[in-house]
């Protein structure tokens, strides 16, 4: 348990807590990005270079931005205080706590995590070349399926998000009159 690991962990967790509790959505989105970045750093710390950088690229660079766009498009910028948490939300919080308790207990009571072999040893090398070989040999099918899935997701997202242009539909009434085209 090195110090760097600890700091990065704390950063990630703080970002996560912030993302889930802040009132204003944009703040949440930014905290979320911080959390993602922290995770990327953690991956790098643990020696998963490619995964860390992919995390940065995809999560921070795409998903976080996507969330910001969504916040923009759904006019969720301002929210009143009493409308932050859903009714009876504390049940959810309690449940999350219960889940953490169970998982922590599993971790604590597991023998696998106590092995001294775990933790010793140098960080494994993961050259890109090996990753490339793996993708093209062992994991070629998942690769192709992922490609297909990404295509389908893209098409699906476009279809879902396209504004209907049929004559009978009423145009969307904008909440914010300043944003009228």
């Amino acid at each position, binding site marked *: 348990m090195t110090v760097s690991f600890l700091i990065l962990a704390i950063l990630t967790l703080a970002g996560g807590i912030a993302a889930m509790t802040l009132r204003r959505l944009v703040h949440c989105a930014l905290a979320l990005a911080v959390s993602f970045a922290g995770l990327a750093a953690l991956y790098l710390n643990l020696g998963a270079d490619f995964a860390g950088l992919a995390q940065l690229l995809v999560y921070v660079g795409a998903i976080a931005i996507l969330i910001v766009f969504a916040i923009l498009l759904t006019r969720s910028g301002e929210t009143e205080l009493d409308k932050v948490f859903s009714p009876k939300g504390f049940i959810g919080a309690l449940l999350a706590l*219960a889940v953490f308790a169970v998982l922590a207990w599993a971790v604590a009571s597991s023998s696998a995590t106590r092995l001294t072999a775990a933790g010793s040893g140098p960080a494994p090398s993961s050259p890109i070349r090996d990753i490339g070989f793996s993708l093209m040999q062992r994991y070629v099918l998942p690769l192709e399926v992922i490609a297909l899935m990404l295509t389908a997701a893209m098409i699906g997202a476009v279809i879902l998000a396209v504004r209907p242009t049929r004559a009978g539909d009423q145009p969307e009434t904008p909440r914010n009159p300043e944003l009228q085209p």
Partner: protein
Amino acid sequence: MMPSVSPVWIVQNLWLIPALPMVAAGLCALLKRKERGLSAGLAIGSMAISLLLSLKAFAEALAHPAIQVKIVDWMQFGDQWIQLGWLLDPLAAVMLVMVTFVGLLIFIYSLGYMAHDDNFGRFFCFLSLFAGAMLGVVIANSLLLLFMCWEVVGLTSYLLIGFWFQRPAAAAAAKKAFITTRIGDLGLLIGMLWLYSQSGTLVFYNKGFGCLEQGALTAMATHATVAGMAVSTAIGLLIFCGAVGKSGQVPLHVWLPDAMEGPTPVSALIHAATMVAAGVYLIARVYPLMSGAALEVVAWVGAITALFAACIAVAQNDIKRILAYSTVSQLGYMMLGLGVGGVAVGMFHLITHAFFKALLFLGAGSVIHGCTEEQDIRNMGGLRKFLPVTFATYSAGMLALCGFPLFAGFWSKDAILHSARDWDLSRGPFYLGAIGALLTAFYMTRQMYYVFFGPQRLTEATITPRAVAKHVPHGNAVEPVVSPRPGEVCAIEDPHESPAVMTAPLAILAFFAIFLGFVGTPAWPWFQNFINGIGVAFAWSGFSEPGLLSTMLISTLIVFAGLLLGWWFYGRKPIVRVTDPDALETLAPPLFRALGNRLYVDEIYSVTVIALSRFLAVFASWLDRFVFGGLVRLVSWTVTGVSWLDAGVDRFVVNGGFDEGCREVSRGGRLLSRLQNGRVQTYLSVIAAALVVLALWLLWGHRG
């Protein structure tokens, strides 16, 4: 002679003789009421053809006197066949010729008699049906076929007696005839069944297996039954019961006089010549079955009937009633002849009686027609002048009936009396028959004097209500045009002779009434021997049979005595007024009144048999209404109660329970649906909770 199955054409097709009139009857039934000529033509035509065929059959029987049969398989059950068939022997042949000939003459007579009746077609239909059935009885080789045709004969008798069914008296008479003969037929049926069970067949002659052939007869004669009688005797007596009903012998004679309600041709054909003779024919047919004991009963019943009916006839005032009782009496003679003398003796009298009795009835019909439907002899008189042909022929018939020497009746009645006198069991029947012959001459003379001699008493004032009610005016009105009260003026004509279509048959029958007897004289007993199947030559020596000449003398004396008595009482002083008392009445009023009331036989029956049957009917009705009806009502009440209960259960328990169940399910569903609040986070919470539980469970399991 062994009865043989014959391939001769007429024997093979003997069935045509009854079938043709039946087919004519069927066709007549389909014709419309106004097609009178066609229906009469069909009936008379079919009867004429049957006559020709009967003559051919007669010629065949003359050539080959042995019995010839033809058997036809009818129904099968199991491996047994019910067989019918017909036979031709001299007995059947003479009956065929007689029935068709007399029937044809009466059909022709009816053309004139029923000319004014609306139901002309129906009349000929029934007459044809009767003729067909009667001929069927004659040729039947099976007791079953005979019985079937016997029943049809009874049916047509009912239909014809009740021909004018709108008259209540006619309808009642028809019912009485049918029911009374039915009582006799019950005996016949039981006898028939017993015969079948004893001999296994009802066919008379069937190549040795028939029930009248030697094998069956000896078996039945030796087998003894109740009261020590042989089975054949018992069966013979039971069959005789049928003959008693149909031929009007004493206990069951009550229907015959009432049957005079029918039209006169009907009375002539059915109740004089043919149907009533069917009983005599039946006994003649099953003669091999009748043992001495049975024949003794037959003879006594016949003799008693002969005397009984003759007594009653003396005091009757309706012209047809006198002839009806005379018929009953003569049928008694026929039975007596069968019993004491054998088939030939009885049948000879049957044949001659058919002719002269039909003649008498037709003559009476002519008289009635001429007197505007008047039937009471007290209201007639002096008709000799107005109806000469009728008078001549009627006289011939009357003399034949009385047994006047050399007329037909003389020879036949004499044969009976001769056989009765020589009967070794008793002389009783002879004496009864002799007294009956005396009375016969007496009442016939009385009738002649009342109707044909003396002054004419038929005037407007004397017409009876019954005559007026029955009179069909020349036209098409059904109701009489005058009031039925006596003494009222009505439109009657003077007594007039009947048209030629009615008098021609009278003349023909008169010829036979006079000359037919000559085929059976003792000098040339052709008839008797023909019946018995042997040829014979003319020989005066026949007269020298012991006792014969004395019997002939006695019967001649009896006839003359009767005629003399009749003249004494009724001929010396003319009967001037309608209301003059009868000569006998002044002599012995209570006796005359009793005889006039038919010796109260009907009244006795009414009090005993009919009262009993009425009581049984009432009892049965009570039984049906209260006991069986009560049971039925109980059952239906139970079923109704059960179904009411069931409905209740269904409505409250099943439906209610079911409905409640459904409602509870609905409520449960509604309750459960509240879990689905549509919020995603709720669902996710539930999943998380499930995850926690599952993880705990797994970990707990692994920990241990």
